[in-house]
């Protein structure tokens, strides 16, 4: 059996997130691990990792995905998450950019 590749501890950002992988004509629902950290082997970067570890994955090989973000990209992502979180709670979009 495929084992979870990411090491999940109390320090892991999220040990359970619902998600799905999808293709042109398929969709696999799965639990996922999401983790953000600062990889010691790539100083100055932020790492965002995602792994679906459900037992019902039919269309994807066991694997984890890892994104290497610059600090600016990480802040940009955080800002977008904050903005959409506020939107989700408000139930409407808060305009961004020039017209704001």
């Amino acid at each position, binding site marked *: *059996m495929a*084992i*979870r590749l990411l*090491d*999940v*501890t*109390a*320090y892991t950002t999220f*040990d*359970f997130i*619902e998600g799905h992988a999808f293709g042109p004509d398929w969709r696999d629902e799965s*639990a996922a691990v999401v983790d953000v950290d600062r990889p*010691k*082997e790539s100083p100055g970067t932020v790492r965002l990792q995602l792994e679906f*570890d*459900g*037992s019902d994955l039919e269309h994807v090989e066991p694997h984890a995905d890892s994104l290497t973000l610059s600090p600016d990209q990480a802040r940009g992502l955080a800002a977008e998450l904050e903005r959409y979180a506020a939107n989700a709670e408000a139930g409407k979009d808060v305009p961004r950019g020039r017209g704001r």
Partner: protein
Amino acid sequence: MSNKKEAWKEGMYGDEVREKLIEFAEKGWESIPEEERDMWFSRFKFWGIFHQRDGQESYFMMRLTNVNGQMTGEQLRAIGEVAREYATGPVDNPEFGESWIDFTTRQSIQLHWLKLEDVPAIWEKLESVGVTTRSSGGDTMRNIVGCPVAGKDEAELVESQPILDRLHENLRGDDELANMPRKFNISVTGCREGCAQDSINGIGLEPAEKEVDGEVVTGFNVRVGGGTGSRQPRHARNLDVFVTPENAYDVVRGFVELYHDHGRRDNRQKNRSRFFVDERGTDEIRDRLQEEYVDFELHRGGRNFREEYTYNAGKPPEAGKTDHVGVHEQPSGDYYVGLNVPVGRMTARETIALADLAEAYGSGEIRLTRRQNPLIMDVEESAVDALLDEPLLDTHTPAPSVFTRGGMACTGTEFCDIALTETKLRLTRMLRWLNTNVDVPTDVDTIKIHYSGCTADCGHAYTADIGLQGMRAQKDGDIVEALDIGVGGGMGPNPEFVEWVSQRVPADEVPGAIRSLVGAFAAHREAGQTFRGWLEDFGVESVVDVCEPAETDYEDPYMYDAKQSWYPFSTNESPAPTTVDDVPISSD
């Protein structure tokens, strides 16, 4: 570049921390500046003082230390009295009440719910009978383990206790080596049962013999770089070095110094000794050890005795002892009696009673095993039956059920910051359910179920027949405590780590899953096969298919906590931080 903990350690570590801790204790919890708490708590660990988890501010766990799990009745009684007087929290554990001790997997003892203000008095009481907490935590040499019945063991090939004593006194006691890159584990065993579990230690000495100058001499082979944490377990690798008992201390010291000097201090995820051995390789380590750290010629590895190992070796009972539980004869003709303490937890009252029994029926000596169990030593044959009739041995019986005998668990979310699930109480309930609901073939004496609350694996899930590690899952729309289930681990001639067969199993479905595994074992095994022996034939991939998590009438009342509350068994608000008398300290 050093990390934060390295900077703290460089600032102060080792023996120096003690004075500071006493100073804080005298002035009280609030004297520790809030912004300095993480730093001081990190340093306190060297002295065995661990701040408990979030929500339990101002309460501490204390880990004791010893040599090879050995203590006198007087020492254990003092520990029990300390537990009775000081290990009392603001709330009881629903299963164990208040005031208890935990036996650990490194032959030691932990106490919980202590107040910092009480630590000096506790130290005074413990140290007056020769019990210390020094070097039991943090980045240092942990309790040095061995065969708990060293010197009193029919299976002993070579004497190890004098080496263990010297390592404890001179190596672990050396303040110059207090600040290691990371925690470091040492084992030395001269017995042929494999009970020190050398293959999961940073350095392990195992019994061996070799022809030296035309004469066969007994001594030890050396293995390095074993450990089970972070889902990156390693068996200690053969260094291909044989040492005589006379040189054993110097070789262990040499490797400790080598790791102290050259182990990475920049990356805590990669600096355990097992990764050090990955990076350097045994050839380089052996060469460097020879060139720079020992001043005698190292012999190449001798003949080991691993084939004889029976401890958690997956062999049938007739092959020899799989643990120390039960009544066993010593070479002197006396007996030792191994009690079974499920999940390692014993009340203060029972602890004191155990000390009394050891003195009344034996020599007073008590020894602790790596399976969280105590042994009463040196019982005359004529006294064994009367000892077995004592009420304490009814509770913690030397003749336990198959499941109770095999159960071990780490601390879990009850007190531990990094655990993902509760462990000890849950496994206690699971063992009870398994005992009454799952049939096991009569020629099977134990199925080892080890439960760790997280991947640090302090509960040794990786070396179990059935290993459990904490995780989380969703069930009926709620996030619940869940377990990953693995099978097929164990020690012995060919140590194996579990392979995972089911992930994120909601905690209340785990007993059902275990029942399906044991059911398949009972149905498909050949007569005489142990669980691990059967797995080797049946195959782990086939086990994936037969492992069926399912709800049963097992009830798991704490599965929705998922570490959200300050104490998994309380629905009240946390009173912490509190005064020494458990009165909440006002934030005004």
